[in-house]
């Protein structure tokens, strides 16, 4: 009982700390960048990380196996992965834009995991025969880490897309405005305005420069994080295949979950390939990554919710698949 109490406490602490962190993020975003606040938010994320780690460890101890056997546990692990993705660059002193994404992602997964939706799954203590293997830890942890990194990377790409398209629309508006002005004003006024326009454009170009730089940074970070996630996903899928060859008799069964993991893998392989060609625009690869974002969710949740195939571990005690 003490374990479940401890687990309860840790869940709530981590959830509330992440909420505070997000509030701090919002404040720094809306008001101004206050260094102290920013620092405290980082500390908050570290606290969250330790809370979730503690949560996983307690669960591990009292269940006797690594807590990755159902959706609830994998969600907790997903939020743990988000927090570790958040923390690693912090310790390496890289300032980046990931933190704005990882914290909300962590809170969403944590919130979803602890919400009433999955309450009846919390207490599942048995591990079906097929899951009793050393491969469980390797396969599922790699998959979930991969999902976390890919989700972060593709979210960065979504952000990039949003910024790029907003910019395009603005420029379009500006151009129209400029044209209207230049036609409607008479010669002298136009000359006078000329200076202003010049100033305006230079101001605009400075802002555009920063924006372009920001887009470049987003693009780069999403590329790096997706490559990392792709690596984890590859290891996860392959270790899963080796495990399947031990447990189910074939390394590839075209099981829905497997297939969707492979689709995810293919989509991100496409993303990585679009990056190799300079002729492809940044936005194109970002669109591919955003598609990947949706596909991860289908792969992670959709297949489980439908409860089809060999990977449906929610509802089973005596399934014919053992």
């Amino acid at each position, binding site marked *: 009982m003490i374990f479940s109490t401890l687990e309860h406490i840790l869940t709530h602490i981590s959830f509330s700390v992440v909420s505070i962190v997000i509030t701090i993020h919002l404040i720094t975003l809306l008001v101004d960048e206050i260094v102290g606040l920013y620092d405290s938010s980082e500390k908050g994320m570290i606290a969250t990380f330790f809370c979730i780690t503690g949560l996983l460890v307690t669960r591990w101890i009292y269940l006797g196996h690594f807590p990755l056997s159902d959706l609830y546990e994998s969600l907790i692990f997903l939020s743990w992965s988000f927090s570790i993705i958040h923390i690693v660059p912090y310790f390496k002193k890289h300032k980046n834009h990931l933190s704005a994404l990882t914290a909300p992602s962590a809170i969403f997964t944590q919130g979803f995991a602890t919400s009433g939706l999955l309450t009846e799954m919390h207490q599942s203590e*048995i591990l079906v025969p097929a899951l009793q293997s050393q491969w469980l830890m390797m396969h599922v942890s790699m998959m979930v880490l991969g999902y976390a990194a890919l989700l972060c990377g593709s979210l960065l790409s979504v952000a990039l897309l949003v910024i790029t398209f907003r910019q395009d629309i603005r420029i379009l508006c500006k151009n129209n405005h400029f044209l209207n002005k230049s036609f409607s004003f008479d010669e002298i006024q136009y000359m006078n305005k000329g200076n202003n326009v010049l100033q305006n454009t230079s101001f605009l170009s400075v802002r555009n420069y920063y924006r372009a730089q920001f887009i470049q940074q987003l693009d780069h970070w999403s*590329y790096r994080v997706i490559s990392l996630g792709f690596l984890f996903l590859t290891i996860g899928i392959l270790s899963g295949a080796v495990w399947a060859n031990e447990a189910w008799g074939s390394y590839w069964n075209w099981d829905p979950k497997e297939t969707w993991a492979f689709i995810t893998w293919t989509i991100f392989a*496409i993303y990585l390939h679009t990056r190799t060609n300079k002729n492809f625009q940044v936005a194109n690869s970002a669109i591919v990554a955003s598609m990947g974002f949706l596909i991860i969710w289908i792969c992670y949740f959709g297949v489980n919710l439908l409860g089809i195939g060999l990977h449906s571990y929610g509802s089973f005690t005596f399934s014919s698949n053992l």
Partner: protein
Amino acid sequence: MYTLKPSFSKTLFLKSPLLRSSFKPQFFPYTTQISSPCSSTPLSFSISCKLKTSKDGKSSKSLAKKIVLSEGAPAVSEDGAGNGEAQPKPASKGGGGGGGFGGLVKRFPRKVLSLLSNLPLAIGEMFTVAALMALGTAIDQGEAPDFYFQKFPEDNPVLGFFTWRWVLTLGFDHMFSSPIFLGMLALLATSLMACTYTTQIPLVKVARRWNFLHSAEAIRKQEFSESLPKASVQDLGVVLMGAGYEVFLKGPSLYAFKGLAGRFAPIGVHLAMLLIMVGGTLSATGSFRGSVTVPQGLNFVMGDVLSPSGFLSTPTKAFDTEVHVNRFYMDYYDSGEVLQFHTDLSLFDLNGKEVMRKTISVNDPLRFDGITIYQTDWSFSALQIRKDGEGPFNLAMAPLKLNGDKKLFGTFLPVGDSDSPNVKGISMLARDLQSIVLYDKEGKFAGVRRPNSNLPIDIDGTRIVIEDAIGSSGLDLKTDPGVPIVYAGFGALMLTTCISYLSHTQIWALQDGTTVVIGGKTNRAKLEFPDEMNQLLDRVPELVESSLSKQSDAISG
């Protein structure tokens, strides 16, 4: 002096004959500087090519084409650094122009090659494969045609056009073995090969060469550039070496690189993918599979169970082995859920000698001479009971399907006159081998008994003792010659994907008086690179005046 700098690799992508002819002369400084043993033959070749190009545009095209055709194929397999990397791309262009019929036949593979190595095509193929797979999970696989008639009716098509005709003619009812899907995979595989051959290998040949840049402008043109006043290039070399770079120094110029494996790795990824595909094909064509449900105590011959999956499947001697199921049992959690399934198997050869014995369970199969036996299923074979002290009788258990997937087995013991038209008796139901639920003649619950408990139960005047519950083990057998190849591919893929994350970094530096001009570029970690460089450059010691003069002496000397 302007040397061939690695950014020249970009020109490979620009499909303009003009650019190609313009870079040819640049071979001279490079090949003369670095004496590569293999570069002598390509060198003479490129001279002739250059001379022809400078004459007139019209004839040069055909000439270049001719040279490419005769020389292109060996150039890539050759280890020569000077020529190989330039060849494949021009060759593909040569195919574009008109020519004789003989030329067309010769050119055809190259044309196909360049078409296949086209990146947008490869991306399109990957998208198609992904879409087909998604469709394959959306449409229920392997059902009878009637199922599709109902699910995709003609009078109410999905999305306005998608009916069962589409599903059945395109083979979408068995997507993952349909010709369309397999053909797409094969096309993807050829694209992979073509891309590796025409794009990746040449890229590596460019990257593998280490070369110096001899002009400060060329160095400043790099993605990262910096100049350090009062520094020496030797000190920089030591610092770089300390940071894990391979450093080459020649007079005032320095070249350093790190993470070259990161350039090679994508080729490895492609080759590993091909290896997995080869292994998968072998698995599909050369394996045997079969499944069998054997009651405890019985035996079967492996060859009877295994059926071939493709034309390459050839049975081995091990197929004569007889398998005896000594025992089948389950472990349970305290809550009654199944913990694990075990089957104790003995293998006998033709002479009846036991060659192997192992207790298998889920995740722990038996492997014997290429054949693997998996624990995949179970069933309730029979119930051994004693009725009024007589027996024991074996009652066969029948699987019952009630709503839900859970297993349920039942049997019936007639009581009284078994010849009368409506026989009544005791029903026994079981979900697992642990406990049997008994019902009396009227169908009322009578009690629960565990096998082996020897606790009798009296129902309608009949005393029943449940002696034993005999389970049968569901076994899957397979031989798969593709597994070693696929596993090799898996290993290679994991390794090369990890290495692919590494960034290939190149740094050039030039001593310009007392200043060192440094330039560098990297292919992956572009944003971290300037920080990393600045940290490194901070560590380069500043020279004091006295040693400065020595330094410049040393360089001039």
